């Protein structure tokens, strides 16, 4: 019974982590950007979905769409306002650009976090669930919304796989991640590819944020921990590797759930962080890293 409970809860949590981390790793793979405003974009999506439903009285579907749209806009703003000016700057030496982007996205994330806290307070918000009620899975009372969350995550990840591997746009994106210079020689504008990737990323982070808001709830305090969890999953899986992130999300999700049930919810994140340290020693490139 408890085993089944862990199996069900762990899957929902893992699926959510996977969705959050996929976008994060996609951006790194294609444009080499570690976006530390990731958590802020997820929280912005959830708070927007909450506000749409609670303040402006839209229904839960429209609210969720508003949340995803807000994340896409914030994500593109991150690219145009923060990342692109640094990448194009002649004043910043090329070898220092990565660290500038890292710092700038971190500060951008803090700015978004403070704005959310200022306008919507730092108290937690929860998004109106799209499906209400519970079902019993072999005796385990499971909220329908938890199942919905897991299904949406799997479908979206599947769509992403289809997009990257089976469409022309996706193949260009994939090629850009392997050899950006080669892609430009073939006549593709790198900036356009980046815009597509940031838009895809925004949608993924938005869906993950809205679902998280329904499943557990978020506050402006969640920004740091969400960025950290995406970051550690991606590092564990291997930076830039989407399949590595998926495996790592499952590992971290189940490890956390198992710890919460079998040891104590207070120690939830510790074993996964220890695992990260061990992987860093034994296999610094991560589980499926390319180097």
């Amino acid at each position, binding site marked *: 019974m408890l085993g089944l409970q862990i199996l069900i809860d762990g899957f929902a949590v893992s699926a959510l982590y996977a969705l959050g981390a996929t976008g994060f790793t996609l951006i790194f793979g294609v444009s080499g950007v570690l976006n530390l405003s990731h958590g802020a974009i997820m929280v912005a999506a959830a708070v927007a979905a909450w506000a749409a439903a609670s303040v402006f009285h839209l229904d839960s579907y429209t609210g969720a769409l508003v949340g995803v749209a807000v994340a896409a806009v914030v994500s593109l703003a991150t690219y145009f306002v923060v990342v692109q000016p640094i990448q194009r700057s002649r004043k910043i030496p090329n070898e220092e650009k990565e660290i500038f982007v890292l710092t700038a996205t971190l500060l951008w994330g803090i700015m978004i976090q*403070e704005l959310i*806290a200022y306008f919507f307070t*730092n*108290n937690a918000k929860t998004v109106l669930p799209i499906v209400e009620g519970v079902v019993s899975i072999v005796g385990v009372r499971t909220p329908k919304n938890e199942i919905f969350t897991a299904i949406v995550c799997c479908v979206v990840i599947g769509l992403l796989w289809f997009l990257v591997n089976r469409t022309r746009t996706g193949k260009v994106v994939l090629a850009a991640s392997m050899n950006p210079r080669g892609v430009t020689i073939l006549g593709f504008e790198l900036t356009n590819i980046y815009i597509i990737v940031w838009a895809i990323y925004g949608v993924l982070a938005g869906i993950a944020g809205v679902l998280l808001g329904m499943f557990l*709830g978020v506050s402006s305090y*969640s920004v740091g921990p969400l960025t950290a969890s995406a970051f550690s999953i991606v590092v564990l899986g291997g930076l830039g590797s989407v399949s590595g992130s998926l495996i790592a999300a499952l590992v971290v999700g189940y490890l956390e759930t198992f710890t919460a049930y079998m040891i104590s919810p*207070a120690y939830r994140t510790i074993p996964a962080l220890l695992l990260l340290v061990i992987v860093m020693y034994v296999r610094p490139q991560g589980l499926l890293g390319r180097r």
Partner: protein
Amino acid sequence: MASNTSPRASWSLSILLGATALGLGMSAAYAADPIKIGVIAEAQAIAGASIPQAAQMAADEINAKGGVDGRQIQIVTYDNHSSSADSVRAFQRAVNEDKVSAVIASYISEVVLALEPWASRLKTPMITPGAASNEITRAVHENYEKNKYTFHGYLTSAALALSVCDAAKELLVDGKKMKSAVIMSEDAAWTKPLDVGYEECLPKIGLKVLDHIRFSPDTTDFTPIFNKIEASKPDVIITGISHVGVQPTVQWKNQQVPIPMLGISSQATNSTFGKDTNDAANGVLYQGVSGPDVAVTSKSIPFAEGFKKKFGNYPSYAGYTSYDEVYMIADAIKRAGSTDADKMVAALEKTDWEGTIGRVQFYGKEDKFTHGLKYGKGLITGLMLQWQDGKQVSVWPKEVAKGTLKFPSFVKVTSN
């Protein structure tokens, strides 16, 4: 963050202008220096945001009636970003640069405990409108001469536990024939004495404590906690939560945990809690000292309504106390005839003030809760309220109750 202070700045500006105009036209008494009261609070948290607003409201009322012996009261506010370090800096600035005569500070126990030594060092009377830890008054009791500048303007955790048990006895044990409970509280300074209080008083009222779960205030997924609680089959969950509130409540409803929750849930005292939880709050029972429609005293409802008119929402629990505290400080200054710190402390100790949450008196030097609010009938007993259909309804004590217990359908109550 500049815009953060602008509404308040414009307030104080208009007061200043008003005061200047008065000073120009009237006698010298009106031109006397204003009495400054510093307010250090959490502007971004719902519970904290009401603190400076309510203080300003009290000051405006006092000033409209001529101030204290002709001197106007000026509120100087500082946002502490829920941080102890920021609060200490604000306290130093308030005393050393802005020359305040007293400070009203914070609803977070950790913050107040960090400020307490500074109230002693800088010899400035300080009252907290919302922190609860017993440690605050214990420090005053154990080292009175040094720490006498700190007053505890809200119930201590020990008194909160008593208030919860008194209500649980009538509502659950006598009313619903409940026999067992699990304590669920967040790991923080204020819940340590609260839990000790619960462990002691729950068995006395007839609720056997089956389990006691303390969890990190960072917890976001409460599924494993509710699961563990359900496994021990209690009749009720007795809560001690403040840093968290929305998340456990929403997950309690989403997972349809069939056990009612009663206890301290600070976030549930906010009038926005229903909206923040998408009405998952319905059925939650929480201890309070006030409620939007509860006439604890004749001052409660006029204050709550006036506050709503001015700021658009009802005050948080710390708003009520903060409002009272400005009046208490003004009253003490009037009786002391001075803003001298030691004279003010002596006057505050003799406080007997009917405020919005009851009749306020402080425990004396000999009591172990020195400078804490006196708890009991005729003074302050607290209330038990329940979220019903998106509204906060008082259900205990009988004298002020506006409704009876009502739970959502997934909750199983023993005598039903």
